[in-house]
């Protein structure tokens, strides 16, 4: 199950963990990414909390926790290769994995078709 947020994050559900990253639209808007700050494994967040930071040449942006839950893994490769977020935002550029407090929060998010419609509405 692949879900999206209005903050341009994607969530991939596999079993009881949710992998989180930013969408192609988001990486495109941010530009060349030069630094990613990831949360600590074990940290817990409420939905909307600042969970990570992504910095382009020009500016720093927050990545919000798309759901409430606990961080169970982070993509340490991004520390050395932050540009992966640009080149493979939906794949190697994932940020962290969460154990959701409430899986129904994930299920309620937009599916791919709804996100595409949401993007079209932004133009």
């Amino acid at each position, binding site marked *: 199950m692949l879900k999206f947020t209005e903050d341009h994050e994607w969530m991939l559900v596999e079993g009881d963990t949710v992998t989180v990253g930013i969408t192609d639209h988001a990486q495109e808007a941010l530009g060349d990414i*030069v*630094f990613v700050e990831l949360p600590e494994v074990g940290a817990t967040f409420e939905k909307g909390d600042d969970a990570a930071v992504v910095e382009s*040449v*020009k500016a*720093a942006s927050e990545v919000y926790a798309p759901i409430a839950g606990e961080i169970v893994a982070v993509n340490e490769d991004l520390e050395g290769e*932050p540009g992966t977020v640009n080149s493979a935002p939906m794949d190697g550029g994932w940020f962290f994995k969460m154990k959701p407090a409430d899986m129904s929060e994930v299920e309620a998010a937009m599916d791919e078709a709804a996100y595409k419609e949401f993007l079209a509405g932004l133009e």
Partner: protein
Amino acid sequence: MADENLLKTPLYDLHVEAGGKMVPFAGYSMPVQYPLGIMKEHLHTRDKAGLFDVSHMGQAYVRSVDGSDPAKVLEEIMPSALAVLKPGKMRYTLLLNDNGGIEDDLMVTRTFDPEGSLYIVVNAACKEKDYGILEERFAGRLALEPLEDHALLALQGPKAEDVLAELDPRVRDMVFMEGTMVTLEGVVCWVARCGYTGEDGFEISVPKEEAPALAARLLKSDDVEWIGLGARDSLRLESGLCLSGHDFNDETSPVEASLNFALGKKRREEGDFIGGERILKELAEGTSKRLVGILPSGRAPAREGVEIADMDGNVIGQVTSGGFGPTVGGPVAMGYVPAELAEAGTDIQLIVRGKMLAAKVAQTPFIEQRYKRKKVS
């Protein structure tokens, strides 16, 4: 979304056509980047040649009204040796206030006209302020004539000379901080060998109707790409060049801002300019704070406003410019620290999002400046 109150430069349509991402800057709609992106635009400029639209900057002639030397008159509020400027020579200088603070930095060039008139270029964001200061202070002595009918292009990078020489080979004879009239594509332009990137290059003042055609001609070269404000900022930061209103302001003195090189040799002995008393005292006794280069030890950029701490965690200053340096390949910054911690190599800390990050005071420029200076024969 277009803001109708924003001004457009004569090159606006070309930027939009080139896919420029237009943002408001100093009252103008300006391209912050093109499809190439800030990183590649930056590296392209250092590798080949970048074309910048800097038409938002303030170009003006300063002429004498009462027969005096306009450069000598400007020396009252600018601490550089300006009266000695020969036709075609230019200086980087500072517009000071009564307290010796820096209102703006600017370029002053002696033109070839027999009255010794000057051509100045001031920062876009300070245009109205600077013009107001000059007009008020020098009423009846100097006439300020803004050149509103001219665009300003900057062509910067190691290939800039070859590209511009295709249009007029005489530009090869110019050296850093020299300007002259050159005919490019049949249009008389003022060309100066200077810039804001740390690279060799030129600034071209061109009548606004002719500017799009000249820009299009320069872009025909495979070596030339449009470069936006984003890379302009990272290029100048790597070169250790100050941004007016950020790395200094109207309270900062030239000594605090580490701009002693802009003080004329004789002038710093005599202090015959406004604020001279403070500046002479600071030259003799030092200042409590100094602008320095900063190299964060890790990968996290430290941006403007980040607090600087000593090794005990006491806040001692602030970052005034900072970001990622694509040529350096890591974060670079500038900021103010107490004079006793201003020596290159001194360990400091940066407070980024509540965390203490290791950093060192560093020499600027962070890269090697590659200006074409006069050959020593």
